[in-house]
């Protein structure tokens, strides 16, 4: 488990660093919301999931999508807008999805995934016999979105197997949590009688352990659970900030926030030789992904209207 957690944390880190380079080179248009610094959360939670469980993700979704099992090569092609991408170039960074892996998509609307995951979990409950769960990832900013509160209420009322995972990185764009959250984040869950806990989101093993407990209780039919993971976003809210140079975090905080690095925490538990061989394999994989993404063809413009409807629309 330690090796596989490290591998995923490291894969996400390096994937994101390669993405930032591809944003600079113009291969990824529109930029990305880098997940750098928060990798332990996606890696730890998804390690507690099965293939047939589902997740909903966010605007900062690459880590979740990779950790739930999407192919990094086709994922990168998607970010580069290529027809070989997961979404055939129709989605991009904020909409990457792979339903065959239970990845119900990154989502550009803050908070929206909470109700979608609740509905999927409700459907699992109805299907009977199974014990699949749904996980909704969201940021600290989303806890002020009405829909998330509606979804938590419904999930608790209907006792559906959904895990709400709040990644508290201290900021919603430029706004601090203390400026945006009255009361506490876990207090929102308690209000609906949903058990919650706050954990160190920098340590994938800690996240894994907490998520496993929550997932198992959901599988046993005990209803939803809520996990607040404390973390820090090492990079910009969005790569646009690299050019715009928006200043809203104290310089000392930017240094201290990076002192505990999820890659080092997970990597420190491995034998150096093992760590090195994992790193090498990741570099080779990402080299392949970059080559594939940058050389794949763009979608054919004549297909721009495809995939809107599942059945014909014109009489």
């Amino acid at each position, binding site marked *: 488990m330690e090796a596989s957690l490290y591998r995923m944390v490291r894969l996400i880190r390096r994937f994101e660093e390669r993405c930032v380079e591809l944003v600079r080179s113009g291969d990824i248009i529109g930029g990305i919301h880098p997940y750098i610094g928060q990798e332990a959360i996606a890696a730890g939670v998804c390690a507690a999931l099965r293939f047939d469980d589902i997740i909903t993700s966010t605007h900062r979704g690459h880590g979740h999508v990779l950790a739930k099992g999407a192919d990094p090569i086709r994922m990168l092609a998607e970010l580069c807008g290529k027809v070989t991408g997961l979404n055939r170039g129709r989605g991009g960074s904020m909409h990457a999805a792979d339903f065959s892996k239970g990845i119900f998509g990154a989502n550009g609307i803050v908070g929206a995934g909470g109700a979608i995951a609740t509905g999927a979990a409700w459907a699992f409950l109805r299907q009977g016999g199974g014990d699949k769960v749904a996980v909704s990832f969201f940021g600290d900013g989303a806890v002020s979105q009405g829909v998330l509160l509606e979804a938590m209420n419904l999930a608790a009322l209907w006792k559906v197997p959904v895990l709400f995972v709040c990644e508290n990185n201290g900021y919603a764009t430029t706004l601090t949590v203390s400026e945006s959250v009255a009361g506490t984040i876990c207090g929102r869950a308690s209000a609906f009688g949903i058990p919650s806990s706050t954990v160190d989101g920098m340590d994938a093993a800690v996240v894994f352990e907490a998520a496993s407990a929550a997932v198992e209780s959901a599988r046993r039919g005990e209803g939803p659970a809520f996990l607040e993971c404390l973390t820090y976003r090492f990079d910009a809210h969005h790569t646009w900030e690299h050019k715009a140079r928006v200043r809203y975090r104290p310089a000392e905080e930017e240094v201290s926030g990076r002192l505990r690095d999820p890659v080092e925490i997970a990597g420190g538990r491995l034998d150096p030789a093992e760590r090195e061989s994992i790193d090498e394999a990741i570099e080779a994989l990402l080299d392949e992904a970059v080559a594939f993404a940058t050389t794949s063809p763009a979608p054919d413009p004549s297909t721009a209207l495809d995939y*809107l409807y599942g059945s014909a629309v014109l009489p």
Partner: protein
Amino acid sequence: MASVKADAGTISYREAVAEGIAREMRRDPAVVCLGEDIGAAGGVFKTTAGLFAEFGPQRIWDTPISEQAIVGAAMGAAMTGIRPVAEIMFSDFLACCWDYLANEIPKVRYMTGGQVTVPLVIRTANGGGLGFGAQHSQAVENWALTIPGLKIAAPSTPADVIGLMASAIRSDDPVVFFEHKGLFASKGLLPPEGHLVELGKAAVVREGTDVTLVALAYTVPIALAAAERLAAKGISTEVVDLRCLIPMDMTTVLASVAKTSRLVTVEENPHQAGWGATVVSVVVDEGFQLLDAPVRRVASANVPLPFADALEDEVMPTVDKVVAAAESVANF
């Protein structure tokens, strides 16, 4: 049984809603309903009466007053393969969950390159004429028409309620299903089991040669009453019940205009960006040479629907207004 109260051979529009849902629930165990007060209470408009008794709490789910969670959860459930039928009590309240109608449900299939379908129906009671005031009366079918990725049905008869409901529930695409409050008490033929009306097929509900009226839902009986009055004045009127806004059956509309050379749309939504504007734009684009007169649109005025009867009549389409518009183009 959802249709116990129907007379032999006839059924009310209100009962047809429950009957249409029940028929699909009997044939497909994947169909489930959720919404406010739809369970044992049978819905505030009694449009789900009998469903809870027949199908029970595992298939008929009462929800809290959480429009976003209702529609968002329906979407998540639909993407796992079940077929939710979600009720939003009054169509005005679609605004409370508009993110899901505008950004999530219609976009996910496209954005994911066709990975998933969203086979859900959002049913809602639409329109005015009952004195409920501006926040419970607006005809909002044109809101939905602004969104590629949705399908839109708005039946005018009990038989079409049942036939379109079957198609909507069986559709792999999301369908917004507008039930008209002003039609709930109306009666019509009870169609046989298995009755299906394909989405996007308009009906010519009265044939004529001088002018075409294109109507939808509540305005269909208005257009038919107007046609009757116009006949007395020697004007032969064809009435097209559009039935659906997406897909929009412009083939039937253009064929009618080819016959009559004159077009009036009869819409309940506000004139600004109402569906008739789309109908007219296609007709002038693809059928300009067919027209012998300017086209006219009879629609609601561009105001929130007022409360008092006298004001409501003033701003909504009426038989008088349709007769006047049809006469003006017939005599052009």
